[in-house]
């Protein structure tokens, strides 16, 4: 079996007396998509931000591509990319300018050609000359995804990429992620509140609750384990803390 591209080992993050992530360990291998599921405040985004080096862990370690994040930040980030609802590209520049700038920051050779290729893949070539700030939510998400794919990342972090998208665009985004999975085999870490996203895209799910991994497995395994009819129902049970009763 391939060595994991991402290894998170007993990671803890405390903000004062509040523990956002509490001893989480996980591994993601090339070609594998792992879903992070959990209610708001479960620690998903904090975990992703630690993997990106934006937040330093209080305890534990993060290794990407076999390298320690704190010591090899630049090498790791050059092979990593992400898309999150918390970041957008500068709204006052044209889409192709933004993407070309980020292509250069990621050391992409032939930046213009790469941007053109990605715009075509995402079916947004028509947006190239548009001002980024004037795009709709769906268009903006696809442009952010294009940025996330600029460096053909070996590790791709997608934080709620379908949030605020209509079902049609959300479906296109899921198809795109599956296409990237098949064609480039990156390790993908995917968070979403959309259970359909998780079921369709992820090979394995980690259910985070109050900073800890509550359950791990495929969507079917987790649904069966918590005696739900579907993942949605399990999610609601966990959100309402009904799961303690199930566990005992």
């Amino acid at each position, binding site marked *: 079996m391939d060595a994991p591209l991402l290894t998170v080992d007993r990671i803890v993050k405390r*903000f004062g007396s509040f523990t956002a992530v509490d001893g989480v360990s996980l591994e993601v291998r090339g070609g594998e998509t792992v879903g992070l599921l959990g209610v708001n405040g479960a620690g998903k*985004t*904090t975990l992703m*931000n630690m993997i*990106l*080096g*934006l*937040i*330093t862990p209080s305890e534990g370690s993060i290794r990407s591509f076999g390298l320690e994040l704190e010591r090899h*930040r*630049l*090498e790791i*980030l*050059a092979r*990593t990319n*992400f898309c*999150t609802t*918390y*970041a*957008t*590209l*500068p*709204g*006052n520049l044209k889409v192709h300018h933004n993407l070309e700038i*980020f292509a250069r*920051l*990621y*050391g992409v050779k032939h930046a213009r050609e790469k941007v053109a290729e990605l715009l075509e893949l995402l079916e947004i070539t028509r947006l190239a000359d548009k001002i980024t700030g004037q795009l709709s939510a769906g268009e903006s998400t696809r442009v952010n995804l294009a*940025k996330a794919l600029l460096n053909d990342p070996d590790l791709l972090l997608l934080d709620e990429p379908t949030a605020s998208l209509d079902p049609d665009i959300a479906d296109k985004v899921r198809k795109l992620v599956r296409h990237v999975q098949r064609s480039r085999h990156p390790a993908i870490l995917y968070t979403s509140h959309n259970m359909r996203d998780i079921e369709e895209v992820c090979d394995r799910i980690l259910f985070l609750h109050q900073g800890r991994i509550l359950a791990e497995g495929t969507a079917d395994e987790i649904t069966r384990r918590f005696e739900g009819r579907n993942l949605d129902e399990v999610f609601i049970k966990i959100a309402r803390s009904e799961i303690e009763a199930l566990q005992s």
Partner: protein
Amino acid sequence: MIRPATILALVTRQVLLFTRNPVRAFELFFWPIVQLMVWGFVTQFLQQHSVGEDGFGRFITFLIGGIILWDALFRSQQGVAISYLEDVWTRNLLNIFAAPIRMTEYLAASFTVGFLRVLVTAAVLAAIAWFAYAFDLFQFRWTLVIYYGNLMMFGWALGILSISMILRWGHAAESLAWAVPFMVQPFACVFYGVDVLPGWMRAVALALPPAHVFEGMREVLAGEPVDPGRLALATGLNVLYLLAAGLLFSRMFAIARKRGLLVKAASS
């Protein structure tokens, strides 16, 4: 019809903003105090040094030279501070800091932006000063490059100080991007000589590179020879201030990563 309760609610909102945010409260006093200090010292300087028609004419050239050179400091500080704030305002901060970029590269890019801003505005101001006031900026010859270099270096250091504070205190501290250069202005002796300052302020002024640059500028405009020692001291001080600012930024960046402040600033 005007409803007093509505007005009271809106006023309460503003008062609460002031009382909950020390930077806003600080600003309330800061700008008038700076204005009063600067123009008070200008008046004292004018009284002491503008004896006769020649004296007043010389004062005017000091003023024009001061205004043009001060812009170099302000513009380079803005280049650093506003570059960072642009990333905050456009919610691009996470994209930048999660990209494979060294902090030194990020700062070097913002220094370059500051330098370009200075270059453009200096050209425009020099032309206007020449045509409108017959003030020749190039009369300083080679020392002009040293003046500009020193003021830009200090502007960069202040820019780094500004973004360090914004990084640490978030949106509440954004107005410091504009206020920081003016905190220094009364001590920089842009429009008046160091000798008009009271003792403790003079000591602070002499520890700051701009005071030496502006003193040097006035000496040259008064027909005195260039003092290379003064310019060397300004350059040495600038190196120290830039190093200190770099260390401060590095420390604040580490604190921001530890406390999640980068993410908070980017997503709020």
